């Protein structure tokens, strides 16, 4: 266990953030807090992907016309970064749609607490 903490601290951080996000989503009754949990969870996955690409003392993955081709060991893997750019866009659009829903719910029920909304529905 201590081994993982020392050698792979980023995985531990990822697990803590992911579980924290999920916990907030499940436990909090306030809709906006739920969304904060959701975004935390999505961000933790971005952290997970980015840490996959990390290499100590590596260069950027750009081949200059003058230089020879780089060996794969020398540069950081760009693919996880690119994937996560797309995942960030997906996360932002999900957040946008969900905030629009929260606004519509607030206009209708005048509260953001889920239990109060359920009470007003009956």
């Amino acid at each position, binding site marked *: 266990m201590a081994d993982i903490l020392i050698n792979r601290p980023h995985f531990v951080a990822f697990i803590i953030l992911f579980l924290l996000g999920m916990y907030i989503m499940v436990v909090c009754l306030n809709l906006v807090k739920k969304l904060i949990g959701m975004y935390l969870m999505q961000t933790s996955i971005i952290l997970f992907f980015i840490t996959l690409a990390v290499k100590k003392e590596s260069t950027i993955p750009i081949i200059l016309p003058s230089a020879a081709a780089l060996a794969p060991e020398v540069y950081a893997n760009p693919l996880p970064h690119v994937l996560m750019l797309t995942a960030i866009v997906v996360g932002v*659009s999900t957040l946008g749609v969900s905030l629009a829903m929260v606004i519509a719910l607030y206009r209708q029920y005048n509260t953001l607490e889920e239990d109060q*909304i359920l009470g007003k529905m009956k």
Partner: protein
Amino acid sequence: MTSSLPGFLFAIPFFAAIVIPVVGFTNQKLCRPIALVALVFLSIVSVIGLNEAVSHGPLSHEFGGWAPPIGIEWVIDGLSGLLMVAVSVVSLIALVHAGPLVEKELAGRVIPFYSLSLLLIAALGGMVLAGDLFNLFVFLEIGSLASYVLVGVAGGRSLLSSFRYLILGTIGASLYLLGVGYFYAETGTLNMADLALRLPEVLDSRAVLIGLIFITLGLSIKMGLFPLHGWLPDAYTYAPNSCTPLLASVVTKVPLYAFVRIAFWVFSMDAVSTQIPILVVLGWVGAVAAIVGAYLAIWQENFKRMLAYSSISSMGLFMLGFSLGTETGFAGALFYVLADTLMKAALFGVAGAAIYQCGANTVADLARLRRNMPWVLAALIVSALSMVGIPPTAGFFGKWHLVVGALEAEKYFAVVAILVTSMLTALYFFRMFQRVWAKEPLPSVEPHVLETPFPIKVSLGVLTFGIMALGFGSDLVMGLFFESVIPKGF
């Protein structure tokens, strides 16, 4: 074979989804014709695609001129071609059906309805065609966003169910993405065909095991597999009636397709049944889901909610069928998926028409259909008999092949589960029939009943015909499945 056909299949509904708000801004009446024309084209092109894929082998399209596995690849093979045809044809029928309902219940929101429906169809097409796990995730999320909004577009009660759907759906998508990350970390590729080559060497790694579990969990939430179905009953009950035929018939089937693609094509039959025995677990989950879903449906008073639980039960049956591990079981499950797509579109179409014409919300209210609504009643009878599994409807042949597949695999619990589910299904549909033809006279002060609009007549007629035709043509369809859809390794 390289072809740009897969790109067209996405481009047609996607561009229509963009054109509709632009044109609709000046003239709202044009939205519906544009949407329908686009879907007619989409159906034609997808039938051509399926035909090409079955007769000449898979068609693939490489984006940006980069050859896979580096570039993104889209593939039409037997299975994805078939799903594409089902999605495009059923969504065309669902949008034809939606016409009069949209005018009544979403009067100020005609543009968002058509635009989002087409965006949803485009995303489902993207999911079906994608040959790349990350691409699949992107389309999964586009499709889910469109369906969250379609569920909540009417406002009111549906907003909270749509919000819950969004929360659970996002957890599902995040788990899927995490699983993809594990696969990428272990193999260094995201292309499905390339993964299929590299995975056999690393099957005993823990990362692959965890990745597969995350992907299965994530997709199970999206497809509403019991016990992860929490969002489904409320979303289907409170969603606008114009959206439910589309949502209930195709939206949960496509994540199921994604799972089948990953389990049997990226992994293999052997890998998922012996080395990582996830199919064994899913077989039991499916059996429980089928029985519990049908049992819960018995107790529902609201007609749409009863159909929602019936969807959960069907999803269990599909899972059970795919987990059997025999060719007949696989083809039977696929046949039942097609049949259920038609049946759910027809049943939710009936529910929408009943609410539109005479405000019949509950199962007991359906007695009003006896008066003045012969078309709707006929569609209800045929699709309900098909759900129960009375020959010669498509539902009977689906269940028949499932039972035969289970007997071949010597999995007797599956046979029992399918039969018990059929009996429970019979119970809730016959209870419904009993209410419809109850001896009590109808109330003399009848609420105003509208005439059945022509688009609803046509769409329900076509769906009913489709259910019967799929039943009569079951040998032909099953023959096609055996020839070009069954994955390797059976």
